[in-house]
């Protein structure tokens, strides 16, 4: 995606090196080096060296601003802190395995939290970049019983004419094909805001390069110009500093770039565009009639209000203009009663805002829960090691260390852990954010690069997690070291029955949660594999779809039919074309028309598709009963229908549906069923029982052509394009392979399985960490008991068996609860499993096996260490 840009991870790393006031200069130096190396030795080399250079900045200290050196005074707090840090590091290095697990656990949790926060931040929290959002308001139309956002363009002109003390600005959004060459790939689309000339100015739009649009750009006949967003510039156009003055093509029409917006400026929050163009160029780019004569296009209106009296005057003028519009209106739509103002960024629909708040609350609490679990686990781990440290702390207290000094030492240790976890989390975030963005289908225009707020979140959670994980062990160690210094025999103090049972519950809950996640991941993975084997009912490999997107403004029904008649003839005459037909919804083309309802079988979905008669032959669908409709029936718009085999089975079990009325399936339909064709999945892969009703196509304006090739379909793309180009040079032909659409369908289960797998690994890792910590702690406290047992004749094996049984019991309870919960989760997921049974024994079996093996592994190490205790040494201590 960012061809020609330095690697993302390295840029993130660079952003967090301390460079002081030399940052701008050094960053520019690195970019110079990168560009030079990319030009002379290629991109790969340049990227590798960029990494090296960034890392060298981390390690070479004198490149950064020199830090003031600590003075030599004995009670210098900075110096003491330094000692604490060094001491803590030494301690942590002494038990690398425990520390690594703790850091990894914290890192995974912080990473997941930060990734979700990054998406939320980008999608919702990131400000619009408008400097004074309160001064800009949207103008809505007010009815007797509601509000509306859209104005006809003619109405907007009247509003503008009727307002003297402010200038209302208009905008509308379109999705257009976008290219950097005149005849490049037309499948890339971009959101384009067509706005009146003063729009960006009224939002206080700022630019990184060039200028914003001005009213002069918005005159009829002016050169078509655009301003592009910072995101588009940096992602797609590789931050080319000489971009201003270059051309881009929207729907094949040339536009000149005059500016790049400042980073973070998105304009209106509910319209995150990549490109802004003058509204006067709307009809040029879309091929419709000019806006003032185009009745179907509507615009949104915003206005920058003055202050005080000017504000009130503008409001009343706008209101009066709207009321005047209402009295003129002759059509039957609801009468306007005035205008309503809402602040930019405020949701038009209050219910939306409430739903959003709820989603936020859920997400935040899930993040909180994961973090809490991670903290508790690390706490357990630290507790386990704190047991072994009581002696050391006792010595320090005896030698005169103050209580505060000890607490600070312990806090420093846990903070270090937290920060290391945060660094680990950052790496995890860099990997996870694009994965999550793909699953959540975040549009490409949204800037996902972390900003200051994300780093603050990361830093804060790291510190909180570190401190949170450290508090309990610190308190524990304190109590013991003060209670009985130097004796080291206070091991029982922390193991009251209650705290032990609460730890068991915690272990059980974690085992259950990780089992559920692992089962879900296993099911989704099985589903993904199954998805690649789904029988879609036809051969997709040699199918193409051709979509000329006939513009409603330029074609009527007769015009469209004429276009298609010629187009079909031309395409059929091409060598390598086996057959061609028309359908409203070609296979995996993205669109569907469905009827959804509840019947005896629960939720039921029927797909509708209007086709020409030869569509069935083109796709390769067999007539199972009766016949498909004829070309003559299709031309006469005869009331006939063809249904899929699946639908016939569900509604006419055993009976012959041919000759029956469609009324039996869809109430009020008068069509007669003339045939049943083999079932084909053409819309969603997950919908195995694709119940479809085919009817003759009446209006071909929205039709797409489906072509079956006899050889390779790729070879046909160019010849189809040139055959149809002369028919309508302005139509933007989108030619796609049906197999590509199918592949896109497969990418979704793949992404879901990846995420679930990652989460399951996280849960398992956390559970193992927790279990290890708890076991080590509990077993450590039972050393004396073990010694006594062995002195009384218990063998190693007896002790092992006892300890394993006690440690694994909560895991088994968790396992049982987890299986029950996973059965429910599997049922909820059934729609995404492509026919894998929700209680798939393979998924459950493998998840249980993994959990049991991991849990046993986590328990066996501390247990073995404990059972190796020398009974004589223990007895001597009693």
């Amino acid at each position, binding site marked *: 995606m960012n061809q020609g840009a330095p690697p993302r991870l390295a840029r993130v790393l660079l952003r967090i090196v301390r460079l002081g006031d030399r940052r*701008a200069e*050094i960053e*520019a*130096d690195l*970019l110079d080096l990168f560009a030079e190396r990319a030009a002379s030795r290629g991109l790969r080399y340049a990227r590798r060296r960029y990494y090296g250079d960034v890392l060298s*900045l981390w390690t*070479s*200290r*004198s490149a950064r601003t020199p830090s003031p050196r600590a003075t030599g005074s004995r009670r210098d707090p900075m110096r003491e802190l330094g000692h604490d840090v060094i001491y803590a590091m030494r301690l942590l290095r002494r038990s690398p395995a425990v520390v690594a697990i703790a850091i990894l656990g914290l890192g995974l949790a912080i990473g997941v939290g930060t990734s979700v926060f990054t998406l939320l931040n980008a999608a919702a929290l990131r400000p619009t970049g408008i400097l004074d959002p309160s001064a800009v308001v949207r103008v809505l139309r007010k009815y007797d019983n509601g509000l509306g956002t859209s104005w006809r363009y003619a109405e907007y002109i009247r509003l503008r004419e009727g307002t003297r003390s402010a200038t209302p600005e208009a905008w509308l959004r379109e999705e257009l094909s976008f290219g950097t060459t005149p005849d490049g790939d037309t499948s890339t689309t971009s959101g384009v805001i067509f706005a009146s000339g003063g729009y960006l100015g009224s939002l206080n739009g700022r630019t990184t390069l060039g200028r914003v649009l001005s009213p002069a750009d918005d005159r009829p006949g002016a050169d078509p110009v655009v301003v592009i967003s910072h995101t588009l510039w940096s992602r797609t156009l590789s931050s080319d500093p000489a971009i201003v003055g270059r051309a881009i093509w929207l729907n094949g029409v040339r536009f000149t770039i005059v500016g790049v917006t400042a980073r973070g400026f998105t304009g209106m929050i509910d319209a995150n565009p990549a490109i802004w163009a003058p509204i006067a160029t709307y009809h040029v780019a879309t091929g419709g009639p000019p806006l003032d004569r185009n009745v179907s296009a509507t615009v949104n209106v915003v206005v920058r209000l003055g202050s005080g009296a000017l504000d009130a005057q503008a409001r009343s003028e706008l209101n009066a203009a709207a009321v005047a519009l209402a009295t003129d209106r002759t059509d039957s739509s609801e009468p306007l009663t005035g205008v309503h103002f809402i602040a930019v960024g405020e949701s038009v629909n209050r219910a939306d805002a409430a739903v959003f708040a709820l989603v936020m609350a859920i997400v935040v609490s899930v993040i909180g829960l994961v973090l809490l679990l991670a903290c508790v686990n690390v706490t357990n781990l630290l507790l386990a090691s704190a047991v072994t440290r009581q002696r050391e702390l006792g010595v320090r207290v005896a030698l005169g260390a103050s209580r505060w000094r000890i607490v600070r030492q312990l806090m420093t240790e846990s903070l270090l852990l937290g920060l290391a976890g945060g660094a680990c989390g950052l790496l995890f975030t860099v990997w996870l954010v694009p994965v999550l963005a793909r699953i959540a289908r975040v549009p490409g225009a949204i800037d996902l690069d972390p900003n200051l707020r994300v780093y603050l979140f990361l830093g804060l959670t790291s510190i909180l997690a570190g401190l949170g994980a450290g508090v309990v062990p610190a308190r524990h160690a304190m109590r013991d070291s003060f209670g009985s210094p130097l004796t080291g025999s206070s091991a029982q103090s922390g193991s009251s029955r209650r705290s032990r049972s609460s730890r068991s519950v915690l272990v059980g809950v974690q085992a259950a949660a990780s089992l559920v996640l692992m089962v879900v991941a296993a099911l989704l993975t099985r589903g993904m594999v199954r998805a690649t084997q789904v029988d879609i009912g036809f051969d997709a490999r040699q199918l193409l779809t051709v979509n000329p997107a006939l513009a409603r403004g330029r074609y009527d029904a007769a015009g469209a039919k004429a276009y298609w008649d010629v187009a079909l003839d031309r395409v059929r005459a091409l060598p390598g074309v086996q057959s061609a037909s028309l359908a409203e919804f070609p296979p995996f083309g993205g669109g569907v028309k469905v009827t959804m309802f509840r019947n005896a079988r629960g939720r039921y979905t029927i797909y509708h598709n209007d086709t020409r008669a030869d569509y069935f032959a083109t796709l390769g669908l067999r007539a199972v009963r009766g016949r498909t409709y004829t070309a003559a029936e299709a031309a006469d718009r005869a009331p006939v229908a063809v249904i899929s085999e699946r639908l016939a089975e569900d509604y006419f079990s055993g009976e012959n549906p041919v000759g029956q009325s469609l009324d039996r399936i869809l109430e009020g339909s008068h069509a007669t069923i003339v045939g049943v064709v083999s079932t084909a999945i053409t819309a969603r892969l997950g919908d195995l029982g694709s119940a479809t009703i085919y009817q003759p196509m009446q209006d071909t304006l929205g039709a797409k052509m489906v072509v079956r090739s006899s050889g390779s379909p790729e070879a046909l793309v160019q010849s189809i394009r040139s055959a149809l180009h002369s028919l309508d040079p302005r139509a933007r032909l989108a030619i796609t392979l049906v197999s590509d659409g199918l592949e896109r369908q497969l990418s979704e289960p793949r992404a879901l399985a990846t995420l679930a797998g990652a989460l399951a690994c996280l849960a398992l890792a956390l559970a193992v960490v927790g279990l290890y910590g708890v076991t080590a702690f509990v077993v450590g406290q039972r050393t004396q008991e073990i010694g006594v047992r062995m002195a009384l004749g218990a063998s190693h094996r007896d002790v092992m068996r006892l300890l394993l049984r006690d440690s694994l019991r909560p895991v088994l309870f968790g396992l049982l609860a987890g299986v029950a919960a996973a059965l429910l989760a599997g049922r909820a997921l059934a729609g995404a499993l492509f026919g894998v049974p929700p209680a798939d024994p393979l998924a459950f079996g493998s998840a249980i096996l993994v959990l049991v093996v991991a849990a046993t592994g986590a328990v066996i190490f501390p247990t073995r260490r404990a059972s190796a205790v020398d009974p004589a040494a223990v007895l001597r201590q009693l």
Partner: protein
Amino acid sequence: MKGERLGEFEEFTLLAVRALGDHTYAVPVQRYVEEATGRNVSIGAVYAALARLEAKSFLRSSMGDATARRGGKSKRLYAVTPLGLRTARELHRVRARIWSAIAEGRQS
């Protein structure tokens, strides 16, 4: 600052600044040292050497004018001070003396 010595990498860096004609910046210096020594040199090492040389008063630096090509970011330009030049020459002389002694030793 008298008595300060030059390390090997510092010497290369100092000479590169001189060779590039004074008022050069870190990027050409890095490239020059890399080409002259034939080994990969990280920019961090160059910054470090430049900073040390400046601290020893062998180099002085000033901020250059902003150029449009770097997105308006200005460069830190380095020049060799007379002291730096003297020290480098002295080093070169010492080396030459030793090498010539070696050469004479071989001949005899």
